[in-house]
C-alpha cells in the first residue's frame, strides 16, 4: 500500500499519522478519513507528517475541502513534523499562511488549549 493512515486521540485532539504518499491515487482514503472526523465532530486535528513522504495538490484539496467547516466550529488543522519537501509544497502555494505549522507534535496539540480558554 502506498498510504497508511493511523489516528490517535491525544488530550481531546485527533492526531492523524499518514505513512507514505498522498497523491491522486491515494487521496480518497485521506479525504474520507478527514470527512469522517468532521462528521463525528472532531474539529481539533493535528496532521503529523513524520511518515508523509509526499503530498500533491490532490492532498491539499482534501484539506481545503474540510477546513472551512472545521474553523466554523472553532476547530483547526495544525500541521507538524513536515519533511522539508512536504513543507516546500505548502510554502510554494502560500499555505504556510493558511495553516499553523509546528516543528513538533506536542506544541501542535497544546496550541489548541488557547482556543479552549477564550
Amino acid at each position, binding site marked *: 500500500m*502506498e498510504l497508511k493512515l493511523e489516528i490517535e486521540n491525544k488530550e481531546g485532539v485527533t492526531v492523524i499519522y499518514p505513512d507514505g*504518499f498522498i*497523491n*491522486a*491515487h491515494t487521496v480518497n482514503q485521506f479525504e474520507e478519513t478527514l470527512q469522517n472526523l468532521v462528521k463525528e465532530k472532531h474539529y481539533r486535528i493535528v496532521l503529523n507528517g513524520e511518515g508523509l513522504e*509526499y503530498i*500533491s*495538490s*490532490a492532498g*491539499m*484539496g482534501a484539506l*481545503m*475541502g474540510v*477546513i*472551512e467547516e472545521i474553523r466554523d466550529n472553532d476547530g483547526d488543522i495544525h500541521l507538524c513534523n513536515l519533511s*522539508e*519537501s512536504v513543507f*516546500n*509544497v505548502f510554502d*510554494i*502555494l*502560500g*499555505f504556510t*499562511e*493558511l495553516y499553523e505549522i509546528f516543528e513538533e507534535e506536542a506544541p501542535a496539540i497544546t496550541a489548541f488549549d488557547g482556543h479552549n480558554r477564550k
Partner: protein
Amino acid sequence: MKRFFNVEFAADTIFLKLATDVTISMCRLAGFNDSTAKDISLAVDEAVTNTIKHAYHFDKSRLVTLQFTITQEELIIDVCHTGNPISNTEIHLPDMEEYMKQYRKGGLGIVLMTRIMDSVSFGSNGNHHYCRLVMKRGRRHVG
C-alpha cells in the same frame, strides 16, 4: 547533445508513483539536486493527474506518454495524450489571496506546476496533445 527517454502507461493513477520515480531518476541524470528533482516530480504528478482526470476522464484504456529530453540547457518533459486538449487561453491561474479566503478545493495543480517549473505550456500535433514542462539546467539547481 540530446538524450531521450520515453515512458508510456495506462491512464491509471496507480502509475503516478512510477511516473514520479522515473522523473526523479531522470532529473538526477540531468544533474538536478534532490530538492529540485522532487519539485519537478511533483509538477509531473500534477500534469499526469490532470491528463488522467480532465483529458481522459479516468478512462484506463487510454495511454499517457512521458517524453523526457535533456539538452545542454534544459530538461523538457512532455506529458502527452490523445484525449481532450486544453489550450493556453483556457488556463486560468486562481488569485491565491481570493483562493484562500474562499477555501476553494481544486485548481491548485496548475499553480504548483507553474510555480515550480521555468515554463509550462500546452500544445498539439494533430490528435496528439501535450503539456510541456521545462526546467533550465542552471547552477541554481545543481549540487
